[in-house]
């Protein structure tokens, strides 16, 4: 059975999240004010002959660090709706086609090592959750200045559900 799963890995609420902290600092350092809270989520999009137990096994053994991180997974490619909340901007940053995704390469290799043979393709990307005094123009600026490099990345901004346009 060929199907697609998306695994999202982030730091646990109570844990120090150095990655998100750095991103928040960098946004401020690059001259965009108003961001109060940032969270980063690493997404692994996995394709192949995989059932739920395979995905669970991959999450437990390969994709997350059980001490500081937690994971969730969904069937399919769409994960942004998982994070939609009033006041939270969701930004998806992916490599453009043709740019080599070395993390995905490691996932493929790691899966083979731990015995998950069904994994055929992997793609990784990052989701940033931002909140604060923000609007579309500002988030766009944050993407261009900080989160995405237009030469190798494409990005997509999801406006919070309660924002009037």
């Amino acid at each position, binding site marked *: 059975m060929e199907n697609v799963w998306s695994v999202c890995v982030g730091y646990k609420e109570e844990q120090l999240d150095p990655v998100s902290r750095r991103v928040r600092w960098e946004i401020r350092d690059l*001259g965009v004010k108003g961001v109060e809270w940032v969270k980063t989520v690493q997404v692994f999009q996995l394709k192949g002959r995989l059932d739920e137990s395979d995905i669970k096994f991959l999450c437990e053994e390969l994709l997350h660090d059980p001490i500081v991180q937690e994971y969730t997974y969904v069937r399919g490619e769409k994960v942004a709706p998982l994070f939609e909340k009033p006041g939270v901007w969701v930004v998806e940053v992916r490599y*453009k086609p*043709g740019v*080599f995704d070395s993390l995905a390469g490691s996932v493929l290799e790691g899966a083979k090592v731990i015995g998950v043979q069904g994994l055929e393709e992997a793609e990784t990307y990052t989701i940033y959750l931002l909140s604060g005094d923000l609007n579309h123009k500002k988030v766009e600026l944050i993407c261009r200045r900080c989160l995405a490099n237009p030469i*190798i990345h494409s990005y997509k901004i999801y406006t919070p559900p309660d924002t009037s346009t």
Partner: protein
Amino acid sequence: MVRVAVIPVRYASDRELLEISRRYMLSLSLEEMKAVQRYFRKIGRDPTDVEINTIAQTWSEHCYHKTFKGIIETQRGVVDGLLKTYIFKATEELNKPWCLVVFKDNAGIVAFDEEWAVAVKVETHNHPTALDPYGGAGTGTGGVFRDVMGVGAKPILSTDVLFFGPLDYPYEKLPPGIMHPRRLMRGAVAGIRDYGNKMGIPTACGAIGFDEGYVCNPLVYAGCVGIMPVRKYTRNPKPGDLIVLAGGRTGRDGLRGVTFASAELTPESEKVSAVSVQIGNPIEEKKLLEAILRARDKRDKPLYSAITDCGGGGLSSAVGEMARGLGADVELTRVPLKYTGLEPWEIWLSESQERMVMAVPKENLEELLEIFRNENCEATVIGEFTSTNRLVVRYGGKIVCDLDLKFLFDGVPRVRRKAYWTPPCEEDPEFPQPGDLMDVLKRILSSPNVASKEWVLRQYDHEVQARMFVKPLVGVHQDGPSDACVLKPLKDSWRGVVVSCGVNPKYHIHPYKMALSAIDEAIRNNVAVGGRRIALLDNFSWGNPEREETLGALVEAVRGCYDGAVGFDTPFISGKDSLYNEYRLPDGGYISIPGTLLITAVGIIPDVRKAVTMDFKEPGNPVYVLGLTRNEFGGSHYYMVLGLKGGAVPGVDVKTAKAIMDRLVEAIDLGYVRSCHDCSEGGLAVSLAESSFAGGLGVEVWLSKVPVEGLNRDDKIMFSESNSRFIVEVSRDRLYEFESLMKGLPYSRIGVVTPGNKLTIHGLKDRVYEENIWELKRAWKSTFDW
């Protein structure tokens, strides 16, 4: 379906030839296109896209160094090749038996001891970093590691020198498509960090500088030092040897990176250059390294007869270079691909990272492939070396490239360029001495070029491999700026390698003196910890050499390199240039980098336990300054913080400088020296402050004791950037021995290390300048307290 285009050049007009060069992004000039046309007219057919791209790559500035090999008309007469006339000539004249391989292979190789050799290479990776700082700087580092692996050495040190625009550069002023210097710097540092740390190669020894000229064109110099047994060096491919491609798979990444490197950046670069960006994978390279070392050491002789890095120009350059004097026959369908759909020329030219090419005698093949299989690293036979002197490339059996190697390597028309240089005005501005010199000192200490780079250094793992003896940060709190790093490469020997660098683009207004200063600084830093028998590497990053004054400045700098190398008795063993570091504005104007010359010095210390660090060690010890302090403020930090221009760029009295350094090394060997620090940016005051707070001790000095030439002001003695000077702390009980050793040289005892925490400087006329060393340290650390 094989897609090979034939490009009609034989009957093309001049205009059409240039159009072809532009359309296929060949970066070839009309004269070069005409040489291509002549060749294909002679053989009676038109070139394929594989052929014309191969020629363009081989003849690119990046691979062939057209400018450095060209004929240049200067005011002083015609220079028949900058490399031949100056750089190689210095090495030839010095003719050192310990220079084992110079300017011939991927890296320069010098003897370490009887059995072992040290391989060194420094590369630039400027253009890719401008587009993607993380990937660009990372692959620059990965590429230079492969250069060292490409002579069969194991990398033991990664070095990096970076230049960016000012960190407070306003966003509004950034030209379109250009990233902010802060982002570039963070991305580049992260890229270098991740590549070195993940491969388990310590990163240390470097510099970071800032100047408005680098806003559009940041510079990344990545260097690597490796160690290898002398007898394991081989570069002797034979007809019949198989061509083995090992490492990562081939994709579209990095296509035409070389021709791209030889072109200026424009606002369009962001759009068209996407494929020129290479993405690194250090884990892949680590596997490759392990496999190569095992193939090297499996038997008495390496299993390969030659090995090279697959870098700029991809297979076309790696196979082409190795086939020189032989011939090669390659089948492209055998190349393992990341994904399908690549056209033959794309496979042949791809600059996908983490690949190396080996020539393997047939009888060794199975053994070699077995090693690579065990390391989980792909290795594939893609062809064979021949004796036809032709480069034949096939795709599914069909010939897609058949070029005469002689034409490919010798057919490039030599460029002829004009150079012109006007000496700058070196007159000093008139200004009164500022009231609070300690405030000026703090401003210099916190200026980005001088300030502590601990934020960067702490991200790099310099402890991995456990070879680092003198680390980049030294002193009681392990945060003082070390002049050089000392490695102990072998388990059973105390002998060490000393690596340092010298660079100061603020002196670019006088390129000849800048070159001498960079050499002096690199050697000075090396000597300050106890290095000797020094070899140099030169790395030029310059603007567009087709402009007379830009080339004129380059010629002056190269001339300085020759005089410095010969004067200091330090041969060049390797080098690289990166030209066209310019940004073309939509209105036709341009922004060029200041001509920047990095000199890397690699020395030897017979016993690493005798190495000296820069932090003051013990109260009561006398403090000396070696070398003359002159009125030299051109490009100085003192003038910079005061907002002044003018002044003479520091020169070098090579003969005296060499005598001072030789004698200093002797003093270090004899154990007289407790600490030693070189004087560079910010002069005497900065060096004294750094040695003080690194050692956690005070110091009291008298400016009236400093040996000067034509100086009579406190501020000028404190902040002059004259070259060839050292601050030396000598053991109290070795004072007389030290002084008698230094006899006849410009030196003086200027003060004493004190137990307190005060930097005290007595001026010429009873004025006393005093500051708490922890205050000075705070200023020094505040800039990058990120």
